[in-house]
């Protein structure tokens, strides 16, 4: 476990360094943001002065050296639009995005596991057909469309849920469902196939022949052994939930990091984009680390050196 930790830490530093480089040069690919932010009243001379004031007149490599030296200390520079530290803006929103992604992940898991297990146990039954239909629908439905439909039904027609914001606990319901449906759909299919594979193993037959109860066999023997692929897909889904929140946050006006990123990209506030992408990358790396650590817990045969 200690080896895994050290290994992942080294990988994390290298990955973050590469991500910082890619992001830094990508956001500058189409020139500096000054030309976009400057009002039409600025002439070329004034634009040049503004560019100099923000340091965009320096060679790209010099700009990157300055950026990375400061970024190591957590200073991602000032937001061009807000005139506040970019990282401060990101941190203000980060909690909301994590909270939404966690709720959606939990909801997805709660829906997917029983559905997947039951459709595997009762193969070709009504519940299996319903589960398959749900999986197909959940995968096919774009989340922005589902989000708008939920708003129309529960906010406009029934008037029981808030259409936007994160001001009250009820505001979590629709964005979480919107994000969770896709995750639940994918996870239920993986659970079903993993369970089907495990259910045909000899040790399951042995467990039944020992007279163990159906529930005990399913949970203790079958599900535990089917968990490795489920955890793998769940880890990937957590990453997807963070990325997918960009769209859902816009539909529900959720004050999260995804919306901040979209807005910052639109107004070319590149310091905020850099800080936000850094956190997204860090989150993905940490999720991967947790998934790897869970493998060891779930299957003692797995060792990392």
């Amino acid at each position: 476990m200690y080896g895994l930790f050290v290994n992942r830490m080294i990988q994390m530093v290298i990955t973050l360094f590469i991500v910082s480089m890619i992001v830094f040069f990508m956001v500058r690919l189409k020139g500096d943001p000054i030309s976009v932010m400057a009002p039409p009243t600025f002439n070329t001379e004034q634009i040049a002065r503004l560019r100099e004031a923000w340091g965009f007149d320096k060679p790209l490599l010099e700009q990157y050296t300055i950026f990375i030296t400061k970024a190591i200390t957590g200073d991602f520079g000032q937001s061009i639009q807000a005139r506040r530290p970019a990282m401060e803006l990101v941190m203000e929103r980060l909690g909301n995005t994590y909270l939404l992604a966690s709720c959606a992940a939990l909801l997805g898991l709660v829906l997917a596991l029983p559905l997947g297990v039951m459709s595997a146990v009762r193969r070709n039954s009504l519940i299996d057909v319903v589960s398959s239909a749900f999986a197909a629908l959940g995968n096919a439905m774009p989340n922005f469309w589902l989000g708008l439909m939920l708003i129309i039904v529960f906010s406009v027609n029934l008037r029981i849920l808030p259409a936007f914001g994160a001001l009250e606990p009820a505001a979590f319901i629709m964005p979480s469902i919107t994000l969770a449906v896709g995750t639940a759909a994918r996870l239920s299919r993986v659970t079903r196939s993993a369970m089907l594979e495990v259910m045909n193993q000899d040790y399951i037959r042995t467990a039944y022949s020992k007279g163990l109860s159906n529930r005990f066999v399913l949970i203790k023997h079958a599900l535990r052994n089917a968990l490795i692929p489920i955890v793998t897909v769940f880890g990937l889904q957590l990453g997807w939930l963070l990325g997918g929140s960009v769209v859902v946050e816009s539909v529900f006006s959720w004050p999260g990091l995804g919306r901040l990123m979209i807005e910052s990209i639109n107004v070319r506030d590149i310091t905020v984009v850099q800080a936000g992408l850094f956190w997204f990358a860090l989150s993905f790396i940490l999720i991967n680390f947790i998934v790897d650590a869970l493998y060891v817990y779930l299957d003692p045969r797995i060792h990392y050196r």
Partner: protein
Amino acid sequence: MNRKRFTTLLVLVFAVFLSLQPLAAQDEVTEFVFAHSGPIRTMDAPVTWFGSTHWLTNGLYDCLIWRAADGNGYVGQAAESWENVDDVTWRFKLREGLTFQNGEVLDAEAVKWNLDRVRSREDFLVYPQWQFIQDVVIVDPLTIEIVTVNPHPYFEYDVSYNGCQLLPPDYMAEVGEEEFARRPIGSGPFKLVEFTESDRYVFEAWDGYWAGPPAVDRVIYQVIPEQSAQVAALLAGQVDMIPAVPRPDRGLLEGSEGISVVEETSNRITSFYLRVETETGAMNETYPDFQPATLNDNVRLAISHALDRELLADVQGSAQPRLSRVCSYYPEGFAEQYADPEAVAAWYNPDLSRSLLAEAGFADGAGPTIYLDAPTFQFGNEKEVAEVAAAMLEEVGFNVELNILDASAYSEQITSGGNNRDMMLTTLGCSPSLVPTFYTCEWTQANYNVCVPEWDALGKQILTTVNPEARLDLWGQWWETYVNYAQTITLYEINSVIAYNSAEFDFTPRKDGWFTFRDLKPRQ
């Protein structure tokens, strides 16, 4: 307690609760929620140029003077009165006993600090707009004089424009600019009590305002990026106003009880901007040796006469056809000549367009190829407008190559990137104080490396002629050059289509397209 007694008690409690409701209602806070697409970033208003930020901060800060809501003149805010002492000097008398919301005194010294700040800070996006000030002189604690570089006919407009907001100097010195952006204080009718950057801003009425507290207790600016989500929130009764109703939803909102849809000019005009040179911008590097057809005067004029503006305005959805680039409610817009439907219809002349093309050497429908750039959507159906305009141009003999880009890519590559080849579609503000500046030789030489001396001379005269009649005469000549030189071809003036909760609020939109809620009143 048996079930019957319990039920009776419950009914009684409920009845008492219901009877108390009207009493409680009397103490209710009047809250108005305005949905906005954002983004909004800084509360240090003079720093930025984004109109949306200035709408938001308008209730928080007072200026010296402010534009009247009906577009007719100006009203005093921190200034009680003001006068033009001579051609270059304006004297302002401040109201007595003014303070900022933290108790700091708002006097002549504070006003001077603010004006010096916006005209000296080159990193502020409003900086160029304040270069008309030569000096700010404190006469006494309640009197201040602003000396302009030249006689300035649009002084009142410019002194009430972006960057006019008065901030408390001592508080700013105490907390610094970064902290001020987090905890701003002004002298306007509303205090900012809570906000999440670019998401939700809660303002509460300030009892200490010189004109008394506003009629609405609380105004909330809620950023909702998606227009369809804005409409849903209004229908759900969770917001009270949306500033731009999408065309497909207009009928739905008009038919909804308690919601009114109103239309008013947005202070924006959409035009085609044509290339008249080949030396500036990125176009020169991207397309070396490219010679725009629009360098030819007759080709540009042919384009202008080939466009049916009435149809294009109709395609836009909420616009009025125009020929001049100043909004029609300003006298300088010459509405009778350039906004009159008959005059605009008469300008559309495909036959004249064809003969102009023939004079330019493109006879018998073998017109030049024109590259037309447009965004998919910015203020309303730009893509469709460009497509219909292209069809009109092809009708008279042009070959049109359409280049439609997503709005942000369009802004990056075309309008800001300088990659427009022949013509591009752009929407800009339409105030008379700004328009001539963009056609003076200082501007065109620096930005396009061209200069039309007669036009330049007229523009400069306009910007220094204080006498309104003489200035209007000059405007008349200026428009002649504008429409015939056809570097900019005006298409239409855009209206805002606003939907609001008319069951609970009385609202009259401003002429200048701003959304401010100082005068908003709850319906009795």
